């Protein structure tokens, strides 16, 4: 028995000591996110995107003459696991990380990367806090943040719709209230705030608040929240013969809303990333997924594909694994990705990613091509 333990220990030591030797032969790209648990559906498509690109590069002879190796760490979208996942990736020798997925987990993980001067590129974390003030030069993302949607909405309401009296209703959640507050901040003094109020999304109906919106003579309603409550709100409004436009974030852009509110959903506005499915690299990314997995990719796949492409492109341009050179390349070099031709600004936000306003027309969300905003 003792002998066996000795052998095991020797193996373990051997394994540990051989790790740095291996690191010299491959470029390790960490992929962190929810790979199991409730939110695995957010984390698995990005993992697949990274794997597909790594395989593609390796078949062509690798990057800088080395093979790419994907090392995955599961954080289940939980902040308390994310820090461990980050530490593990760092000690396993990841030179750059694609992740994390959820905002909370990303907030928890990025200090560890910054301390080790390791770059991370998130495909999906949208909270504005991550890049606020530009204090962390090692963090990048390939998705528009929540404030960008608010900027688009503010622009759309004041310029396109030309409205001057805005009523804000939100569901008191981080996402919904955050959106309503951001739109109010972005509109500033370009339109009056006639109402700013919370509703309980589970209430049987929103009749009273709808009547209040009318009494305050609002000419547009901004709703921060998700589609079930928005559907009830718009139904209540239209049934009360109130036809002012309703504008909301991507939480509203769900086909289910149209099914639930039926004809009352007509005319509703919701923002979402621009439809880039016509781009060649979008089509290629889609085809690669279908070829390898036999089905359509899941959520955040294209953003992750873009993040991984940006990473390998930057390493290639930098010509080394020096993090400062890679950061410079990320800031300066445009790269063709499924979400557009992108680079990153000094805060780490994507440049070249588009957001569009969509409107329900004849039972479908239609992209309003003239109400698009390119991030810069």
């Amino acid at each position, binding site marked *: 028995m003792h002998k066996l333990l000795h052998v095991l220990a020797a193996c373990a030591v051997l394994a540990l000591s051989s790790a740095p030797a291996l690191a010299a032969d491959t470029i390790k790209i960490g992929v962190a996110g929810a790979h199991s648990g409730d939110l695995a559906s957010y984390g698995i498509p990005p993992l697949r995107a990274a794997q597909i690109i790594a395989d593609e590069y390796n078949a062509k002879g690798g990057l800088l003459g080395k093979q790419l190796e994907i090392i995955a760490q599961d954080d289940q979208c939980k902040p308390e696991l994310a820090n461990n996942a980050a530490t593990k990736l760092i000690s396993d020798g990841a030179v750059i990380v694609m992740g994390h997925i959820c905002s909370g987990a990303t907030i928890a993980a990025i200090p560890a990367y910054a301390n080790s001067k390791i770059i991370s590129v998130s495909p999906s974390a949208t909270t504005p806090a991550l890049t606020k003030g530009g204090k962390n030069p090692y963090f990048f993302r390939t998705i528009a943040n929540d404030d960008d949607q608010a900027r688009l909405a503010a622009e759309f309401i004041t310029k396109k719709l030309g409205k001057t009296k805005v009523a804000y209703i939100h569901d008191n959640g981080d996402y919904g209230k955050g959106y309503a507050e951001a739109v109010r901040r972005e509109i500033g003094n370009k339109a009056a705030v006639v109402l700013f109020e919370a509703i*309980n999304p589970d209430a049987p109906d929103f009749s009273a*608040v709808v009547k209040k919106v009318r009494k305050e003579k609002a000419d547009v309603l901004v709703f921060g929240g998700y589609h079930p409550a928005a559907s009830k709100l718009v139904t209540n409004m239209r049934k009360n013969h109130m036809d002012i436009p309703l504008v909301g974030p991507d939480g509203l852009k769900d086909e289910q809303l149209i099914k639930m509110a039926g004809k009352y959903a007509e005319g509703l506005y919701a923002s979402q990333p621009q439809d880039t499915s016509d781009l060649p690299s979008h089509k290629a990314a889609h085809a690669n997924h279908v070829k390898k997995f036999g089905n359509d990719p899941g959520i955040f796949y294209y953003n992750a594909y873009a993040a991984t492409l940006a990473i390998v492109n930057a390493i290639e341009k930098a010509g080394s694994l020096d993090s400062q050179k890679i950061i410079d390349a990320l800031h300066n070099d445009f790269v063709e990705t499924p979400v557009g031709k992108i680079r990153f600004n000094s805060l780490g936000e994507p440049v070249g990613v588009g957001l569009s306003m969509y409107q329900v027309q004849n039972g479908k969300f239609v992209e309003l091509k003239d109400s698009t905003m390119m991030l810069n």
Partner: protein
Amino acid sequence: MEQLLYFFELFFGGLTRGSIYALIALGYTLVYGIIELINFAHGEIYMLGAFTAMVVAGVLGVYGLPSAAILIIAALCAVVWVGAYGFTIEKIAYKPLRGAPRLSPLISAIGMSIFLQNYVILAQTSDFVSFPQLLPELPFLEKIGSIMGESDFIILVTSTATMIALTLFIRYSKTGKAMRATAQNRTMALLLGIDANKIISMTFIIGSALAAIGGVLIAAHMGQINFAIGFLAGMKAFTAAVLGGIGSVPGAMVGGLVLGLCESFTTGYFSGDYEDVLSFGILVLILVLRPDGILGKAKVQKV
């Protein structure tokens, strides 16, 4: 003039919501009146009513019937089916515990509530699903559309008719009289030859049917349901029942309407942020200051 108009808008909006609360509250109060149990699974009955109607309406929709006919058939199916649920729940979860300490059936009720929610998640879905827009359009209401929408009108008329029917039933029918007798004194009612088990079952069936009507009305009004809608509606209706005086049938109706009006006026004149604070604040205040509610009779504690 505008102020007055606004007042009436809020008033009728509050009445509409209040009448839904009242329909659900009646189930709480009827059951409490007979066996002194707070049936915490009652909110789920309301949810099941909406789901049953959705399934039936989905099937009927295929045959291209007019929407009013679909609504009525779906509502009747929901009433019968959910009545059967009420009957079964009582037999499974409460009857075996009739002699047990009062806490046991209460825990059993909470368990039943959790069971029913999960049952719907498994049998249907955990997502929000759409409920067909079935309420007929009433062109003659167009003029006062801002004060009272068509759906509000239908909900008010249906729930008022239901409540009148219930009152007549309890006052004049033989079963109604037996229910009142059992509520007053179960032992005495038993001695006089009233089958208490049958009356208790009947109470659960009627209470469930009322909740089902409420569920169908609000689902058809708002166009959506999910497994969790019973929770908040159930808590609010419970508050309404306590407010009116739990155990009292007119109390539940008054309590529901008063609560609906309070919520509507709070949002209308103050802020929607405080709607739920108000409702549950009322619950606490009533329990502390006047546990017997508006119309409940103060009971003499026999020591």
